[in-house]
């Protein structure tokens, strides 16, 4: 695949940790890559399977959810619920012959601010290696 492939990635961030993690990232002069596009939700528990599949339909090459640590979700079970839905979407993608690695979930925390950007870069790497979604 070509080296200048720039994947389209949609990231769902919980607004709590996105905000506190962003301030740490900012203070460390870390920036998000411009091909990672953020959609904020009050809690990752709000995200439904349909919301996760929709970006692929619109041409995304990867999707990820970034929320709190399992034990520090302000809404207790939000991130656990989101993890289940991401696992479900992985299976759905497999059935559609799309690599399940194209969707992922990450746990951030206010203390690990650099993770805010690091997960974006990691996902970017994964999807770059996979290349564009090959649609029939």
């Amino acid at each position, binding site marked *: 695949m070509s080296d200048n492939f720039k994947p389209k990635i949609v990231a769902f961030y919980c607004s709590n940790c996105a905000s506190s993690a962003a*301030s740490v990232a900012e203070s460390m002069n870390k920036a998000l890559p411009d091909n990672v596009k953020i959609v904020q939700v009050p809690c990752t528990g*709000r995200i439904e399977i349909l919301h996760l599949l929709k970006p692929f339909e619109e041409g995304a090459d990867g999707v990820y959810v970034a929320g709190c640590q399992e034990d520090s979700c302000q809404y*207790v079970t939000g991130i656990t619920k989101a993890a289940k839905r991401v696992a479900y979407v992985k299976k759905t993608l497999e059935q559609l012959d799309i690599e399940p690695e194209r969707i992922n979930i990450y746990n951030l925390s206010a203390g690990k601010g650099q993770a805010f950007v690091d997960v974006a870069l990691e996902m970017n790497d994964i999807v770059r290696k996979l290349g564009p979604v090959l649609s029939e």
Partner: protein
Amino acid sequence: MGQDKPKGSVMVVGGGIAGIQAALSLAGAGYGVHLIERTPSLGGMIPNLHRIYPLCACCKLDPRISACEQDPNINVMLDSTVLDISGDTGNFSVTVKTANDEKTVNTGAIILAAGIEPFDPTKYDTYSYGSHPNVLTSVEYEQIQRPLGPEKGILRRPSDGHTPKKIAWLQCVGSRDINQCDAPYCSSVCCMSALKEAVNTKEFDEDIETTIFYMDMRTHGKGFEDYLNEAVSRDVQLVRSRVHTIDPVPGGNDLEIVYAGEDEQLQKETFDMVVLSVGLRPSGEAIELARKIGVHINGNQFVDKEPFKPVSTNIPGIFVCGGLSGPFDIGESMTQAAASVSEVAAILGPESFSPPPGYPKPAKSAAKSPKVLLAYHFCPGMAPGLSADLEKQAKEIPGVSATIRVDGDILSSITDKIKETDANRLVFASCTPAVHKNLIEEALKLAGLNPYLYETVDLRAIDPGTAEVQLRDRIRMGVARVALITPPPLRQIPVVKRALVVGGGIAGLETAVAISREGYPVTLVEKEKGLGGHGRHVKSTWQGYDVQKYLKGLISSVKKEKNIKVMTEATVKENKGFAGKFVSIVKQKGKEKSISHGVSILAPGGNPIEPREYLYGKTKNVYLWSELSEKLLKDPKSIEDANAGVFIQCVGSREPDMPHCSNFCCSFTVRTAVDLKIKNPDMSIYVLYREMRTYGERENLYKEARDKGVIFIRYDLENKPVVESLDNEGRLKVTVYDPILERPVGLKADFVSLQSAIVGNSNQELADIFRVNLDRNGFFAESPEKMKPVDASSEGVYLAGIGLYPKDTGDSITQAKAAAARALEILSQDKVQVGGMVAEVNPEKCAVCCTCVRTCPFSVPYIDHETGAAYIDPGLCQGCGICVAECPAKAIVMGTCSDEMLIEAPAVLFA
């Protein structure tokens, strides 16, 4: 209910942050306020500063200033000073000199808040200040750093306009010095502000070398040690040395500093610029006034006050807060301002100038098609290029009907612009929109709109190289989403007029007293058998006041007060609800009881950790500091008769596992050492310290200890002291490496006192129950809105005492009174508004499957048998949206994060 109190207005003298805060809280509590300011504008010191430590909050000042100007209950008098004051509580007569005349103002109580002046270093003739353009005071340096200041934030040295490569800071200029400037005290704020200035310099240009020359690095406040560590990791150099001379390098613009390093060797270094961290002085004119009317002034020339009455002067009805009464930072000044409002309320009933302003009735904005206003705010720390990009993007995004760049007074600029453009939705972009949420919602309300018709755009973590794309994406997303919001229904709910106070220590007791004396019932929950908390082991405050006597008086007044219900051996198990209407389950001796209350105050206190070093617990005569203090109360002879004692500082504090400074252990040690020396001048007392943090006026005590012969030896983390047991009698030997003698010294001691780290008592447990955040050191986090020093991260929950951060008795009392004042603001209202970012069930669609009942993490939804559908109480719903996602019938909606918004998102982003 204090029916016999006189009624009246209040005069606040001084329009800095302390005065502004006091005026706003007073007006909120129903008082008419005369706010007198000497200069042509409000704001005091802050407008001169570039950013504020530890968290920048400059954008929080201007809205407060304009709130003062617009409030019909605040009579702002600029260019005015007070000439004289006579009369007494309820009936003061004040002579005010305004720009063009002199008049008499009658008022019921007075708060002095005339603040500080920076020290003028001209008289230090060895610093070349005033004669060399590249030697500046810290205030002048911050002026240069300000993006809105005269230099537009571009750092250039004054002599030749070159970007400096090396900058030095000299600490304690005009502080801790009686030879040249008659100020023995430490100014308390300048170590942090120098760190802040250096870090901000690095932010401007990572390559500029920054070196701070200091004596002790005093980062004793909440989050300060973290800030110090961060500064060091960003390569801010720290050199422990007091510099005596700055020599201009002949034939150029550079400056040479000669200093003695820690090894006493003389070193030379050349800098492009030198910043003098000048000390704080109380406002001269105001001190003169205070003297004239008989207010006591202390030896440091600040207004005198007692630790147990931290905002009162010796004259009843005249209070003091902020820099006029000591070298305090912004957070402390604001806390004192709130406390002084609670003290005014105790003696004076409110008399307003006019009824409080209301909100216009919300228009039916949903009926109209969306008309979006895009407002954006530049923060001082933002990359310079970003603002230009943003200006450009703002004009190009489709769907935006008007744009405005807000600076300064965010609140009125947005309100006015909405009215002017007839917009009905708002997109707000700033570096940290979470900080501006309340302002935005307030602006929408004032403009007659539903307060939730907005979206925010976060401007952080943007790559300068691709800023254009990222800004466009983010703003477009905001604009698309805001158009899809359905304005959520809002409801008014009556306020439950009761406070719940958790913790029966000094802070909890003082809060309970301050709330109950305004006529509101208080339930105080204490987990132990007796009241008093850690205060029971404290002998005296650092000023030397008897804590036991005070505490006895406090406990008895709590027990006498009919309005306070004390529950001992009790703990809170559960809390539900929202500001104005909480329900707590309290468990007392096996029985559970449900209590309704409108506000919660958390004051669970803290304790020193038990160290696992220095033979603690393994041999007698090695005490924890609380144990030593108890011993001094119960069996003072056993300590006072000793031949020698050693105090070890920073035990467990300021180490990687527990990075915070415990704030008052240094002051405890110098107080105790001085007292012991007075009783037994022959006793040898050694203090082994890493940094003496006798900040503020505590410094005088440090000096007294040295004058009395207490010996201070500095140690490093790499070279900790070693405690050995010499015999079975309990004689001890402490070995420490002396950096001046450059060798280990052995000290014989009859006792060792370990000043170990202070940690919160049950912070984690309470944070979970009350749904509030902790900071990274395990103390309660302040409201993310900033500049609200006693507000927890959730509304209606207030904080006081050590749970918030380690602090001494006086500071805990101040916070308690401030927390009470905040709590009273809610208790005195009749109704609160609920709803907003919450979930709502559509009964027609609900299949009564109970999925929401099962999945809600807060057990909010229940089946309402009357409607035959699930019901979600908008007051209790936390707005996570989990039930919305789970409901198989799609019967639950969330207007502020709808399915439509999430489904359309990718199309908007890829357009």
